[in-house]
């Protein structure tokens, strides 16, 4: 066996496994060796991450990094084909490891059981040739973008909602980035998530395979990647079109480069959607007074665990917004519920949901834990 800068030559087994690639002039043995040398980071092992992980592993990408912190839920299986019924309750990374080892045992899978955040994004991404964004919220998408721009690592973008999807390639050397397309995320609470708004199960399959295609093209240096173009996919009309994405000289990430460190955008997930009805509220001072007179209230904190680590209200129960639908049946109907988050938007959505489920004694804490800190207890840190 000969060894080159691309590592050892393909084994007989690899040559047979990748034979349909090897006979493509655009891939061939040199291309296949490039894929084997490549390191790709997949952020998210969900709807988009499923076809991405499966196809990139099958194609022979040598090292796949996979970032996720979630467990497989029964409601994932309608679209997350990386996971099976027997995996429900397991971590998505563990499930992915078993499946990918079967698809292609030559692939090295590096798993990162964490939430990509401002304080770890650069470390996670550094050292990879490409990032593929399969996350499900705006905050992480902006972090992935900004980190990719800072590190000069291309970002293969895909995003979905209901029946529509988008794909592009951002943060290449001279190309635009996600902030050139959408300078800022929508404010929290404006728009529903896939969990609320729904998503056609096959749609992440369509968009994820487009991302996988772009990733392979970039690694191979083949064809014309979606740099400076946004692909719009509409599954209902089955129309695909591309529009132009210009590199914005005023972009704070890739234009003026004023973003020099990562900071999480204050936002919930999601896309423009529904005008929302008001919810019954109580202010922090009212809540403090009611707690002082020992009213029977259950405090429900719908923030994420990393926020809970920063601060919380005494006696509260942590039920992150995304898990409210599952947790609702375990909540008492004979007690008054007071729901809070950081600023009051996410908790308003939880209150709306709970009221639709027949909880009629449920209130939103106006201004969230931030206003509690401002008006009642400054010892509670703001963030």
């Amino acid at each position, binding site marked *: 066996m000969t060894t080159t800068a691309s590592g050892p030559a393909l084994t007989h087994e690899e040559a047979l496994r990748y034979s349909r690639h090897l006979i493509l002039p655009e891939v061939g043995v040199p291309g296949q060796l490039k894929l084997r040398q490549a390191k790709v980071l997949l952020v998210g092992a*969900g709807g988009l991450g499923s076809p991405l992980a499966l196809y990139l592993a099958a194609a022979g990408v040598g090292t796949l990094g996979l970032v996720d912190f979630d467990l497989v839920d029964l409601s994932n299986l309608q679209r997350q084909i990386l996971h099976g019924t027997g995996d429900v309750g397991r971590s998505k990374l563990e499930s992915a490891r078993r499946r990918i080892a079967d698809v292609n045992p030559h692939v090295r899978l590096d798993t990162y059981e964490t939430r990509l955040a401002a304080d770890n994004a650069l470390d996670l991404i550094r050292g990879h040739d490409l990032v593929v964004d399969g996350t499900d919220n705006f905050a992480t998408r902006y972090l992935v973008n900004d980190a990719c721009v800072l590190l000069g690592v291309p970002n293969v973008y895909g995003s*979905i909602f209901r029946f*529509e999807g988008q794909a592009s390639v951002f943060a290449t050397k001279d190309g635009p980035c996600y902030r050139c397309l959408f300078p*800022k995320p929508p404010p929290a609470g404006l728009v529903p998530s896939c969990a609320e708004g729904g998503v056609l199960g096959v749609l992440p399959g369509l968009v994820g395979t487009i991302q996988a295609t772009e990733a392979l093209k970039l690694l191979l240096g083949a064809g014309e990647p979606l740099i400076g173009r946004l692909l*719009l996919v509409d599954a209902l009309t089955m129309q695909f079109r591309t529009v132009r994405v210009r590199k914005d000289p005023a972009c704070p990430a890739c234009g003026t480069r004023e973003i020099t460190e990562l900071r999480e955008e204050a936002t919930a*997930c999601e*896309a423009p*959607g529904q005008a929302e009805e008001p919810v019954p509220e109580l202010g922090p001072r009212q809540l403090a007074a009611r707690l002082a007179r020992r009213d029977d209230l259950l405090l429900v904190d719908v923030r994420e665990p990393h926020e809970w680590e920063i601060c919380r209200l005494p006696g509260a129960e942590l039920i992150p917004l995304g898990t409210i639908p599952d947790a609702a049946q375990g909540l008492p109907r004979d007690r008054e519920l007071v729901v809070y988050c950081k600023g009051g938007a996410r908790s308003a959505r939880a209150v709306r949901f709970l009221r639709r489920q027949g909880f009629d004694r449920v209130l939103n804490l106006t201004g969230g834990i931030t206003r509690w800190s401002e008006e009642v207890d400054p010892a509670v840190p703001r963030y």
Partner: protein
Amino acid sequence: MSVTLQLPNVLSRLAGGARTLSSEGGTLADVVGDVSRRFPELGPRLRDEKGELYPFVTIYLNDEDVRFLGGFSAPVRDGDVVTVVPAVAGG
């Protein structure tokens, strides 16, 4: 002057279920103003309270981001297609 406005599925219910609307006008502001008058719930999804572009809704005139064409003052011509592309984050 007939211009076609294409809406994503998520916004079409604010336009009586229509995915495409025909409109008239000399500028993008005219077109957006016209459809906003016809569908009052749609207007606030296309422009903010000051009548400016949202940073999370990109509007294309044909295949070009209108931010690079003068925003809502971009001139439109007969046969132009305006496409509304909201940021989505699902994955």
